[in-house]
């Protein structure tokens, strides 16, 4: 089975992954923002299913989630919005980001529905491999990839297991802490990318806190892509030209 995520990482150059919270600031705008993010040149779109208690997220995504829920976002509406994006953009890889509780509540049938709506990958930040191994395998059996989040604190055998269980790409977390724009990539983050480079040939994408090309110089040769969430949402809120912004970042990391 071919997966759009795998296809994209066969291309040369760095892959940019944009994150949006579904239903923020409202359903219509989510669709519009998705168009803008895709036409700006982001190669993968990650779409968050909002949860009431997003402990892995910083203030921007937390607020977006709350706002989306207030406006009535549900797992069913999420499927509809994803289907619309898929219809308009047949080739863009789409990844679901969801906390475990909403997915568990809906049951595995929901994963099958995600697949039908055009989802290529699933990330569940609060379902670690140690608890979710079977669940992730079941997801993979549908042809959906499951990038594992690997933060700098993970070492040893478990590190190897996470690398092995990752499909599509490895979601390398630049730092301990939550999502949200920050300054530098700390030394333990850089060390993580070095370890990943030694360990695997799988594509590695760096996420958490990314907003400017200056941050990326220290890791750009160690990774295949970047994930931008909070900073992207901020730019969209401010009505900025996303294409210009992404080009500025891409230019900034060229040698």
């Amino acid at each position, binding site marked *: 089975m071919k997966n759009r995520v795998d296809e994209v990482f066969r291309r040369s150059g760095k892959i940019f992954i944009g994150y949006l919270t579904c239903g923020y600031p409202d359903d219509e705008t989510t669709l519009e923002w998705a168009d803008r993010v895709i036409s700006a040149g982001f190669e993968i779109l990650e779409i968050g299913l909002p949860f009431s208690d997003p402990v892995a997220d910083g203030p921007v995504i937390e607020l977006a989630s709350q706002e989306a829920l207030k406006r009535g976002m*549900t797992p069913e509406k999420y499927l509809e919005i994803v289907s619309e994006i898929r219809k308009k953009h047949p080739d863009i890889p789409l990844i679901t980001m969801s906390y475990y*509780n909403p997915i*568990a509540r809906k049951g595995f049938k929901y994963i099958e529905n995600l697949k039908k709506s055009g989802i290529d990958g699933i990330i569940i930040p609060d379902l670690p491999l140690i608890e979710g191994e079977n669940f992730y395998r079941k997801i993979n059996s549908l042809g959906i990839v499951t990038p594992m989040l690997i933060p700098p604190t993970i070492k040893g055998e478990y590190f190897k297991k996470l690398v092995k269980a990752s499909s599509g790409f490895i979601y390398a977390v630049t730092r301990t802490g939550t999502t949200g724009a920050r300054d530098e990539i700390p030394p333990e983050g850089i060390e993580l990318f070095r370890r990943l480079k030694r360990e695997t040939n799988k594509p590695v994408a760096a996420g958490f806190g990314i907003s400017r090309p200056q941050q990326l110089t220290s890791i750009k040769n160690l990774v295949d892509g970047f994930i931008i969430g909070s900073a992207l949402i901020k730019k969209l809120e401010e009505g900025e030209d996303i294409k210009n912004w992404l080009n500025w970042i891409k230019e900034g990391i060229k040698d």
Partner: protein
Amino acid sequence: MFRLKRYYGSFGGVYIPELFIPILEELESAFIRAKRDSEFLKRYRKLLKEYAGRPTPLTYAPRLSKIIGAKIYLKREDLAHTGAHKINNTIGQALLAEYMGKRRIIAETGAGQHGVATATAAAHIGLECEIFMGSEDVKRQRLNVLRMELLGAKVVPVNKGSGTLKDAINEALREWAENVTTTYYLLGSVVGPHPYPAIVKFFQSVIGSETKKQIRKIEGRDPDYVIACVGGGSNAMGIFSAFIRNRNTRLIGVEAAGRGLDSLHSATLNLGTPGYLHGTRSLLLQDKNGQVKKVHSIAPGLDYPGVGPELAHLVYSGRVKASSATDTEVIEAVKVLAESEGIIPALESAHAVAYLLKHRGEFRQEDIVVVNISGRGDKDMETIMEALHEKQS
């Protein structure tokens, strides 16, 4: 990898971002070592005795016994230092933090009792301390905020969600994620990811072991009933733990029915469904889409949509009976205990007393009933007076 069992039946586990996994393993391994380290245990017991004022008395309640129609005993956690059972756990975990070489602790608090007990243990042992507290609770429990500050802790109001305990835990988890290698998260109840439910139960089980000794000395046998209020479940697990194997002792956990079980409440054991929140699989008050529901209790320490995984399992397996009491019943219970026994209980603990009043006449005269008075009511005076005033007008 983890060495202790992470599950109680189907509940428990570590449903939390990967970054915490190695930290929780490190915590588990320190806990295993500390629990076998006679020096550590000696220090813990010495502090409980000479600093926290343990053992707390088991008080016979003659006038309440007459009202209820059974022999009522009160386990007096309200007499422990800082006025609640919370100190048993915070002394234990603060020592564990020190044992692990961590100099900074953070904690969440609802009623402020766990925050005060954490700040107290931190001051005594000499650790830096920061407390996260929902903005709603900061208002409701002003005095406890002042106490924490006086004890040298920094109180961070959490102005998100409903501004209560759940939101304080979210924020504490985020702060912990930020500084995970240097900071110790001192969780206040038998909730959260493994090994917290096991650690908190271990340090709270002193309530049960004392009670067992005391009641056997007075009555020559175990009680017929042990009743405790349930927020996360730490005072309940603490006192139940000594009696779980004795099938003749009925264990009853009383949750907050708030404004009514068909309205806003926080009766998770009664009405929750399996779900995942704050690192554990347990019962949870959630809607059909898996979003966590808004909860309410007049007692800020019970105002939580989840519950400890072991307690959830004990209720599922039928060993513990889940019950509940409304805000109104609780205020009545405060009055009755104050007037009949000269004890003003915390609003949380008054839920356990309310159970007695609701079931008066259903006991046999010779039944021995132990009620855990998990804390004293000083912190709640404003809320209690307001509620009494409303009732009159």
